C-alpha cells in the first residue's frame, strides 16, 4: 500500500500541519470569514416575498436593468415539471428569500441584493453553488465537492447562464468559447499548427473533460487517462499483440492534446521525441545535424518512416513496430 511507503517524516510533517490547521479552527476564536447572507447570528432569518415571482416580475420585466422573462423559455421556467423551481419557490428557489430585496427602500438607501446570485450578492461561492446542488446534486455532480473547479472557487454561474433560453456552455458551437475565457492557454494551443478542431466546434471541451468533477486529474472523463481518447480514436485502444508501453499508459506522454507546434499534436518531433526514451542497439542515437543532409532518420516522419506502428502492432512480425 502506498500509505505504508510514505516517508514518516513527510507524513508526520504535512499530515500534522493539515490536521492541526483544520482542528485549530475549532479550538481557536472565530476568524473573519465570508459574511453569511442571513446577517449576524442574532438577526431574524430572511423571509420570502409575499407573492413570489409576481413580486419579482413587477420590476424585472424586459425594460429593467436585469430582465428575467427569458427564464420561462428554459427548463427552469417550466411549471409542468414537478422538479422545476417554478413549481415551488419560483425565483426564490434559487435566489433565496428575497423579501428584503423586494421591500420598500428609503430614499438614499441602497436596495439590498437578493441573497444568492446577481452582481451584488454577498453570498459565498459555496453557498451559491449549494442553491444549485439542492436539486442538481446527483448526475455528473457526484464528484463536484473537492474537484478542481470547486477548489478554484468557481460558482455554477461562472459558466452557466440559466436565464438565457440557450445556455451557451451547453451549445456545441459556443461551449469552447465559454471555457476559453479562463483557459486561455488551451485556446492559444488550439490555434497552433497541429490541433484538435476546437476552434470550430467540431470537438467540444466536454467531449474529453467533465467540468463538474471526475476521478481523473485535469477533470478528464473516464476511469483512465486514455479512456476519453478512445472515444474518437477507438483504433488505438487495442490491446495489440505487440504493445508500446507508454501508449497504454497515457497518450499525453507524447501528445499535447490541445495543440502543438509539431505534427500529430506531438510535444516534440521525431527523432528527438523518440530519443527521449530510446537508444537501442543497432540504432545508435545519431547526432543528426543539418549538415548531414536529408536522411531517412531525420526527414519526413523520421523514426516513423520505418516504425509506423508506434501505437502497437498486431502482426506476428511486428515486434519492432515495423509491421
Amino acid at each position, binding site marked *: 500500500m502506498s*500509505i505504508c511507503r*510514505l516517508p514518516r517524516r*513527510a507524513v508526520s510533517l504535512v*499530515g500534522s*500541519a*493539515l490536521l492541526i*490547521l483544520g*482542528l485549530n*479552527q*475549532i*479550538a481557536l476564536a472565530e476568524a473573519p*470569514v*465570508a459574511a*453569511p447572507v442571513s446577517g449576524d447570528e442574532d438577526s431574524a*432569518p*430572511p423571509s420570502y416575498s409575499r*407573492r413570489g*415571482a*409576481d413580486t419579482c*416580475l*413587477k420590476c424585472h420585466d424586459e425594460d429593467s436593468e436585469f430582465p428575467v422573462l427569458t427564464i*420561462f*423559455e428554459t427548463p427552469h421556467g417550466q411549471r*409542468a*415539471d414537478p422538479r422545476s423551481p417554478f413549481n415551488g*419557490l419560483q425565483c426564490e428557489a434559487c435566489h*433565496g*428569500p428575497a423579501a428584503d430585496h423586494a421591500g420598500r427602500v428609503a430614499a438614499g438607501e441602497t436596495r439590498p441584493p437578493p441573497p444568492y446570485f446577481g452582481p451584488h450578492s454577498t453570498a459565498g461561492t459555496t453557498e451559491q453553488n449549494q442553491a444549485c446542488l439542492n436539486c442538481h446534486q446527483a448526475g455528473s455532480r457526484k464528484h463536484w465537492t473537492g474537484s478542481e473547479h470547486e477548489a478554484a472557487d468557481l460558482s455554477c454561474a461562472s459558466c452557466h447562464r440559466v436565464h438565457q433560453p440557450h445556455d451557451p456552455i451547453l451549445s456545441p*458551437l459556443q461551449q469552447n468559447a465559454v471555457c476559453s475565457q479562463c483557459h486561455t*492557454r488551451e485556446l*492559444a494551443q488550439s*490555434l*497552433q499548427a497541429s490541433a484538435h478542431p476546437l476552434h470550430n*466546434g467540431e470537438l467540444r471541451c466536454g467531449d474529453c473533460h467533465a467540468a463538474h468533477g471526475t*476521478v481523473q486529474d485535469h477533470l478528464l472523463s473516464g*476511469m*483512465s487517462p486514455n479512456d476519453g481518447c478512445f*472515444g474518437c480514436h477507438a483504433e488505438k485502444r487495442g490491446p*495489440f499483440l505487440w504493445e508500446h*508501453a*507508454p501508449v497504454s499508459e497515457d497518450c499525453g506522454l507524447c501528445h499535447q492534446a490541445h495543440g502543438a*507546434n509539431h*505534427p500529430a499534436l506531438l510535444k*516534440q*518531433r521525431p527523432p528527438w521525441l523518440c530519443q527521449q526514451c*530510446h*537508444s*537501442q542497439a543497432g540504432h*545508435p*542515437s545519431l*547526432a543528426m545535424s543539418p549538415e548531414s543532409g*536529408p536522411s531517412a532518420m531525420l*526527414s*519526413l*516522419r523520421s523514426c516513423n518512416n*520505418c516504425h509506423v506502428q508506434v501505437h502497437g502492432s*498486431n502482426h*506476428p*512480425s511486428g515486434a519492432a513496430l515495423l*509491421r
Partner: protein
Amino acid sequence: MSPASHQLAAPSRTKPPAPQGRTPGQAIRNSLLPAWNTTKRLWLPASILANILISSPATAQHGVVTEPPDLENWTCRYCPEAGIQQQLSLHTGLAAGFDQDLRFAGAELDGLDQAQQIWLGGQLRHRDPLGFSLHAEVHGLGLDEPRLQLDGGRQGHYRLALNYRELNYRSRNSGHSPYQGMGSASLQLPASWVSAGRTQDMSALPALLKPYQAGHERRRLQLDAAWTPAPRWAFALDLDHETRRGSRFLTGAFLTQSSYLPAPIDDRSEQLRLQGQWLGEHWATSLSYTGARYANQFDALRWDHPFSPLTPDAAQGQLALPPGNQSHQLQLTGQFFGMPKWQASAMLGLGRMSQDESLLPVALNPTLASALPRTSAAAQVDTHSAFLRLNYRPRRAVRLKLQYRLHAHDNSTPRQVFTPVLAESQATAQRTNTNPSHRDQQLKLEMDQRLHAQARLQLGLTQKLRRREDQARRRSNEYKLWSRLSLRPRTGASFSTEVSAARRRGSAFEPLGPDQPPQNAYQRAFNLADRERLHSVMRLQLPIALAPGSHLGIQAEYISEDFQASSLGLRAASQAHLNTDWATQWGGYALRLFGSLDEVRFEQAGSSTFAEADWRADSRDLIQAAGLSVERAGLLPRTDLQLNYQYSHGRGAIRLAQRQGPSDFPLLRTRLHALALNARHHWRPNLDLNLYYRFERFNDEDWQQHGLAVDSLPGVLGPGQDAANSARHAVAVAADYRF
C-alpha cells in the same frame, strides 16, 4: 444561513437544515476549551470529538430556518402565458468560395467543398404547458458537413435525442504517389514500374506520379434517451455510432528502405452507455455500463515494394491495420452528503479490453512461412479502478480533503514465442510478446482555509505510486507539495498564485528480457526517470473603471522539469505561458482582445557511440497568438455585427551541440490568420438577412516535411508534400425566415 435551509422550508424540499446561529456544537466546543487550557494533551482528541459531534445531523435539527411562504398566494399571474410556444424558421443561402475546404468557424455553415453552393436549413421548436417539447434542427443541407438534431420529450419524465453530423478532415498538404488503388488495402505499382536500389534510380517514377489528397469523412450518429420514472430514479441510454472513410499516408519498410503508402480508412465504432441512478436524502448512487466496439473493414495493407527486392520472393510487404477490438466497463459511483460537515464520493470500476483478430501470416514470402504459436491475438487487458474522496468541513472557513485513487491495467495476453521475419527476407531472433501492465495509486491530502472573507489558502500533498511490468523501471514514486493563495477583494479584482514542487524517484533501472534488443545503459525514458518538477501559476484579474463589465486579465505560468539523473535522454524541459486578455462593453460594443506567448523548451542528450553522451539537442518552440472579437447590436439600423479575428505564429528552433561545434536546423514556422465577419439585418420582424465573410491564410515552413520531392531521400519513396501556403476567401448570403 445556507440555501439548504431555505429549501427545507418549502413543503416540496426535503433537505436537512444547516445549523445556524448558536448551535449545540458551539456549546460543546466551548465546554471543551477549558479542558484544552488545563490539559493540552487532550486537545487533539477533544477537538476531533467536537468535530464529530458538531457535524452530526442531530445537532443540525436545531438550526433556525426561514418560515415557509404561503404558496397559495404565489399565483405567478405575471408569468408569461404558459401556452403552446412554437417557432419555425427556415434559412437558405448561397456561398461562394474562392478556394475549397474553408471551414466556417462557429457559424451556421460548416464545410464548403465546391466553388458555389446553396444550402438549406431550418428549425422547429415546440413547447406546451404540459412540458412536452420538440426541437428539430437541420443545418447545412447541401454543404459537405450537414448536421441534424432532434430532441424531444416531456420535461421531468422522458427525453429522446438524435444527432447526426458529418465531419470532414483534409490534410492541408497534398502529396503524390505512384501507386494504383490509392486508399485501398492493396497498393500496386504500375506494370511499367522500374525497381531500383535508390529512389533517384527509379526511372519510371516521374511519369507515374499522381496527386494524392489524404483525408477522411466521419459520420456520427448519436441517440440519447433518458427516463425519470420517479423523482429519485433516473435512467439513461446513450448510443454512438460512427463510421470513417478515407485514406491517409502510412509507411511500409523493408530494412532501411521505406515507402509512403496511401492506406485506407474504413472503419466503424459503436459505444453504448447505460446508466441507472438513484438520489436519496443523504446519498446518491449510480451504476453504469459502457460497452464499445471497433471494427475495421481491412485487417491488412499489402503493397508492392518499389525498391529492388532483397530476394526474389520479397517483392511485396504487408502491414497489419488496426484490429477490431471491444471494451466493457462497469462503474458503481456513490456520493454521501447526509452530514453538513462531511461529504464523500466514491467509485468502483471494472473493465476489460480485448482483441482477438486472426493473426496475419508471419510473412508473405512463401519460403519463410512458419506456423504461429496461435492463430489469433487473444489480447486482453483487465482494468480495476477505485476512487474515494472525503471532504470534511469542520468550520465554514476550513475544509480538509483526503483522496485516494487506484487504477490497475493488467495485460493478460498470453506470452508466446514468435519468430518475426524481417523485410520478408529473413527470420530474426525469437521474440516473446511483452505485456506492459501498470498499477497506479494516488493519494492526496489537502487543506483549504479561508483566511479572510476575501483570502483563501490551500495546501496539499500528493503521492503517486506507479508499478509497472515489462518496463525498465518497475516502481516509481512521486511526491508533490503545493500551495495556492487566492485573493478576491470586493472590488471585483481577483488574484491567485500557485506553486508546486514534485520529486519522483524509483527503483533501479533493469535491462528488459533477454530477447529484447539491448539499449544504451545510460538511457533513461523520461516517463520513468528521476525528476524534479516545479510549477507556478499566477492569475490576476482587474476590473477597469472604463466601463461596467470591463476587466483586464493577466496569467503567467511556468513549468520546469529537471531530469539531471538522466545522462542520456531528456535532461530538462520547461514551459512558459503568458497571457493577457481584456474585455469590455463600451458604447454598445462588446469587445474581447487577448494575446498570449508560449515557450516550450527541451534539452536532451544522446550518444552516437552507444556509450556516454556526446551530443546535445536543444529545442525551443515559441508561439504567439492573439484574438479579437467584436459584437455590436444595432450598428446600422436593425443590423447587428459580429467580427472575430485570430492570429497564431509558431516558430521552432533546434540547435545541435556536438564535438564539431553547434549547428542550427532551419526554423520551423507556421502562421495563421483567420477572420470571420457576420452581419445580420433584421429586415422584417420575421425575416433576417445574413452576410458571412470568411478569410483564412495559413502557411507553414517545415524543413523536415516540405520541399522534399518523392525521390529526395535515397531510401524513402516519400509523399512529395509541399508547404501549405494558402489564402482563402468565402462569401455567403442567407435569409432566415420565421413563421
